[in-house]
């Protein structure tokens, strides 16, 4: 490791459930900066884009802070979690929302059935489908914790897929942009390994 610790920015989009991610990073010895300040985000070594309530309100919050233009221009590693991952895609059918467009593909409502209830809530398996920095050292079929109703269809950027009434992209990587549909901060040892992998990029 280098002498000066990485500056890790956690983009504050007004989502309530941010404490768990901050604590997960603390368990890895990282004190993240909770911020919506463009200059601070731009100068960070790593950027987390955590989930907020819904795609429409999430993009509105980013626009308010002027971050909708900044985030696509970032060159350091950016990890979108849950709705944060969805916002990195081109668009979401939730509230018909144009998104940041740095990861190809669109986000759609999962298909419900009696066996596949929505929200998709609980532990499910991520099946590796390509070379991945985030999944390094994590076997295909590892369990992660999901809570969501929308997801991106598998695209060229998809390196991990999950099955729930159809396959969706649970891990995506495109250049310096990374997304996970599950919550690594709530996914036990596998989640911790994934966060560690991201911080090491």
């Amino acid at each position, binding site marked *: 490791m280098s002498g000066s610790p990485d500056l890790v920015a956690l983009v504050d989009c007004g989502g309530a*459930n941010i*404490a*768990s991610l901050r604590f997960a990073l603390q368990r890895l010895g990282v004190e993240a900066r909770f911020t919506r300040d463009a200059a601070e985000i731009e100068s960070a070594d790593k950027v987390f884009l955590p989930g907020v309530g819904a795609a429409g309100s999430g993009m509105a919050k980013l626009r308010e802070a002027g971050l909708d233009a900044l985030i696509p221009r970032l060159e350091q590693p950016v990890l979108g979690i849950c709705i944060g991952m969805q916002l990195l895609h081109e668009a979401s059918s939730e509230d018909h929302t144009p998104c940041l467009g740095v990861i190809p593909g669109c986000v759609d409502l999962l298909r419900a059935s009696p066996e596949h209830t929505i*929200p998709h809530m*609980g532990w499910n398996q991520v099946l590796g489908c390509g070379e991945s920095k985030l999944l390094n050292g994590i076997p295909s079929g590892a*369990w992660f914790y999901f809570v969501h109703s929308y997801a991106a269809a598998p695209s060229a950027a998809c390196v991990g897929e999950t099955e729930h009434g159809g396959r969706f992209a649970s891990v995506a990587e495109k250049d310096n942009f990374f997304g996970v549909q599950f919550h690594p901060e709530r996914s036990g040892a596998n989640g911790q390994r994934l966060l560690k992998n991201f911080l090491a990029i």
Partner: protein
Amino acid sequence: MLARRIIPCLDVRDGQVVKGVRFREHRVMGEIMDLARRYRDEHADEVVFYDIAASPRNRSVDRRWILRVAEALDIPFCVAGGIRDVASAEEVLMNGADKVSINSPALATPDLIGELALRFGSQCVVVGIDSRGDGGRWRVHELTGDPSLSREAGRDTLEWVREAQDRGAGEIVLNCMNMDGVRQGYDIEQLCAVRERCRVPLIASGGAGAPEHFADVFRRARVDGALAATVFHSEEIAIPDLKEYLASAGLPIRA
């Protein structure tokens, strides 16, 4: 495939974990953090903390323990009890809880379900239902944390399940009061009836006494998760052993 969840429930009162039989005669089972860490290490899929004193007495609740739990746990957890408006739910979620579960306040103010779903998303909003069979129907009970206040809520269980979902509940925990604490198995008949009408995740509660009861409720009532307290706290059933048993019985279980 989505794993069936094993969920220990910690009934919390005055900083300690307690458990009663048929909702009465509470006795101390241990300290919150000790049990929370143990269940994390045993690969529980989720933990529910239910502040049994908070709702009926309508008092303000000391929530500092939630922060300590959130710091220690790397699995999801839900807090129930004493959440009666958007502000109290927000406090719990800001402290790091993944979900809030509302029971009596949802019955008193059904609009609360929708308000919470709108503010935080349905996935954060669990509606807990205490239900008991009565003359061939199932009826909802409220204020069950306190025997002196516990009463029938004047609602049909199946109707309330439908309404709670329509209003935005993202998960239903059905506590079958007839079976609670008596360890004779989950109330399969009632859970099957609710499952038929429930399109969001359904969690069974009340009656677990043996590993077969878990296999039974997952297979026959097709619930998403099974919640239990006494058998886990007392270590009569060790969660790793239970998971191994369920996995070898062919159920999708997170190792």
